[in-house]
């Protein structure tokens, strides 16, 4: 069928005509990409109108970090990343784990290791991730120690850091028992006994950990609850406090860094 030439549209009276595009808008309606961007902005606006979070976001992201900040300053966030990796792999392990001292615990770990698709891989990531996290915590602590970053006004952040260090170590101590194989069992028996030799609180602490004077089913469920509920929550909350203080106070400049004098600063800005 031959195509008919397109006829010009009849002139509309002004109130019915489409308004001309506003400045900044390409041509009235944009393509799908512009629309998607529009939608994104609308959602963010919608949330911000109700929460006023954008100020906090800007405060967090666009604060300045001092001159001279180097790779040593990534160790803290690397630790946090290792913690997140532990959290994610831990959730997958928890889907299979049973805290049953009479064989269920061992059996469930055996099942994850040998039967589940990628099970051994995820378990390996969780196991070795703990070593990586411990190393990173120590490196990060070394950095803040040698840079004198614990001094005024960041004393409180150091104290929170030491609590995080202890909790990280307790985390790996409690986690070590969970597979409930020979190694885990006997190492933990000895570990809890060592706790018991401590002054004053020692015996109470080891009784609490064991859940009585005998090492057995209650011990395992206690370690399980501490490892899976108590400590991850506590560590996450303390990391939050730690980072809030970092953002509020700013990270230290390296101790060797001196401010550039005014005149040179101007010069630098020109270059």
């Amino acid at each position, binding site marked *: 069928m031959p195509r008919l030439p397109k006829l010009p549209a009849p002139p509309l009276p002004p109130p019915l005509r489409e308004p001309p595009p506003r400045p900044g808008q390409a041509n009235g309606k944009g393509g799908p990409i512009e629309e998607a961007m529009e939608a994104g902005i609308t959602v963010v606006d919608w949330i911000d109108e109700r929460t006023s979070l954008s100020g906090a976001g800007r405060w967090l*992201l*666009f604060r*300045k*970090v*001092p*001159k*001279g*900040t180097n790779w040593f*300053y*990534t*160790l803290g*966030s*690397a630790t946090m*990343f290792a913690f997140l*990796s532990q959290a994610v792999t831990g959730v997958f392990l928890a889907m299979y784990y049973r805290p049953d001292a009479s*064989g269920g615990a061992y059996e469930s*770990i055996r099942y994850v*290791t040998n039967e589940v698709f990628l099970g051994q*891989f995820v378990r*390996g990531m*969780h*196991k070795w*991730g*703990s*070593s*990586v996290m411990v*190393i990173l915590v120590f490196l990060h602590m*070394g950095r803040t*120690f040698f*840079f*004198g970053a*614990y*001094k*005024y*006004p960041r*004393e409180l952040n*150091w104290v929170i850091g*030491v609590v995080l260090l*202890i909790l990280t170590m307790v985390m790996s101590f409690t986690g*070590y028992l969970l*597979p*409930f194989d*020979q*190694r*885990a069992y*006997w*190492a933990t028996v*000895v570990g809890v*006994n*060592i706790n*018991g*030799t*401590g*002054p004053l609180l*020692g015996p109470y602490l*080891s009784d609490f950990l064991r859940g009585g004077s005998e*090492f057995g089913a209650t011990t395992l469920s206690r370690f399980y609850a501490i490892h899976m509920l108590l400590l991850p929550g506590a560590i996450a909350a303390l990391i939050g406090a730690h980072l809030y203080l970092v953002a509020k106070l700013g990270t*230290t400049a390296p101790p*060797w860094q001196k*401010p550039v004098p005014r005149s040179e600063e101007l010069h630098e800005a020109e270059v």
Partner: protein
Amino acid sequence: MNQQQKEQYLREYSVLKAQGKPFFPYAVAKDSIMACIVMAVIIAMSLVLGAELGSKANPTTTTYVPRPEWYFFFLFEVLRVIKPPSLVPLATIGVPTIGMILLFLLPFYDRKPERRPERRPIATITGIAVIAAMAYLTYQGANAGSPTAIETPTPTAVVQAGGATRGEFEAGKQVVAQSGCLACHKIGENGNAGPGPNLSHIASRLPRQGIARTLVNPTAPMPSFKNLPPKKFQSIVNFLSQLK
């Protein structure tokens, strides 16, 4: 730091901060690269080293190696360095507790304004010494095996008695060797020197009932062996009470 030094620090810091770059994207970029490295290392370790699972926990068996995760080795080694039993509580909880308290309170007793490590010799040297000590102890701990064989000459009294006595002695030696005692005790040339006392001549120090009592109700950190099958328990006691 007195008030003036604090203000001085804050002033210098605010200038340094004003001359810095925004956190996003500069610091975020570095942090992200580091996060990728961490992820790659964890994945590589998981693929290469895997996740082994030993045999099932069993309070009544006798083959085990009481070994913690490697980053606790240094704590366990402190037990070996500090020998006398009266000092064991000091070693086990005392040293770590004191270390922790010192670490906690660091910002409160080191209050000088100086931050450059080369101008804080005490802090820097202490820090390096602690790291070196921990590295050394970890290395020691990693190399301290838990031998599972005892090669000691059979006492002449036992050889002369011969027969059943000798058989029982050898059986007991076997059980002791497989029970992880050597992780903490030295018998003759075998085992680790500490945290437990040397057992080469235990019988001359401790009567038979004393040895049995220790095994049932030991002083920490030694684990209790009261769940062993009675036969094995008896052969351990037999063996040890011959070591004059």
